[in-house]
C-alpha cells in the first residue's frame, strides 16, 4: 500500500527517528511503513493521520501496491 508518510515527514524536516519518537514506535517501523514493506494497524494509522492532521484516506492509498 502506497502512502505519503515520507513526503509529509520530509516536509516537516523530521528524521525517521523524530517521527518514530512522536509515534512511539521504532525507527525501523517508520522506515518499513514509508517504503511500503509494512502496512500499519488501524490504531497506528490513526496516530499517524492525527499527527499530520490529515485523514487516513489522504495518507494511505490501498489501490496502489
Amino acid at each position, binding site marked *: 500500500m502506497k502512502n505519503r508518510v515520507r513526503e509529509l515527514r520530509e516536509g516537516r524536516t523530521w528524521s525517521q527517528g523524530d517521527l518514530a519518537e512522536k509515534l*512511539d*514506535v*521504532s*525507527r*525501523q*517501523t517508520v*522506515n*518499513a511503513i514509508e*517504503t511500503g*514493506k*509494512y502496512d*500499519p*494497524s488501524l490504531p*497506528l494509522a490513526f496516530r499517524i493521520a492525527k499527527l499530520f492532521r490529515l485523514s487516513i484516506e489522504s495518507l494511505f492509498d490501498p489501490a496502489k501496491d
Partner: protein
Amino acid sequence: MPRYTEKQYRLQMLAVMTVYVVLMLAEWPHVRSIPSLPWKIALALAPVIPVVMAIWLMAKRVMHSDELEQRLHLLALSVATGMICAVTLVGGFLCASGVVALDGDVLIWVAPALSMFYGVTHVWLRRRYGSTGCP
C-alpha cells in the same frame, strides 16, 4: 511508558548470560561427584535460574516492542519452533529405531538450538523489513 531499549536489553542479557557461563564453568563439572542428593539437585538446576531470567528479559523485550517488532518476534519464534519440532522429531525417530544412540543430555541443546534458529530468522526478517543495522 518509556521504551525498553535494545541497549538496556543487551546489557541485562549480557549480565544474565555471564552468570550462566560462570555457573556452567565453575560448578557444573563437579555436580556428578557431589554425594548429597539435595545439593546435587540444587547445583544441577542452578543454571536454569539465569536461563529463566533470560526468558523473562526476552518476554519483556517483546512486550515493550511496537507492532512491527512484535510481528517479527512472532514470525521468528514460529520458524524456530517449527525447526526445533522437525529436528527433534528426526532425532527421536532415528533414536527410537536404533539408528543413532541419544541419551537425555541431548535435551540441554534444545533451548540453545531454539535461540539460534530464532536469532538467525529474526536478523533475516529485520533485513527484509528494511533494517539497516542495530536500532
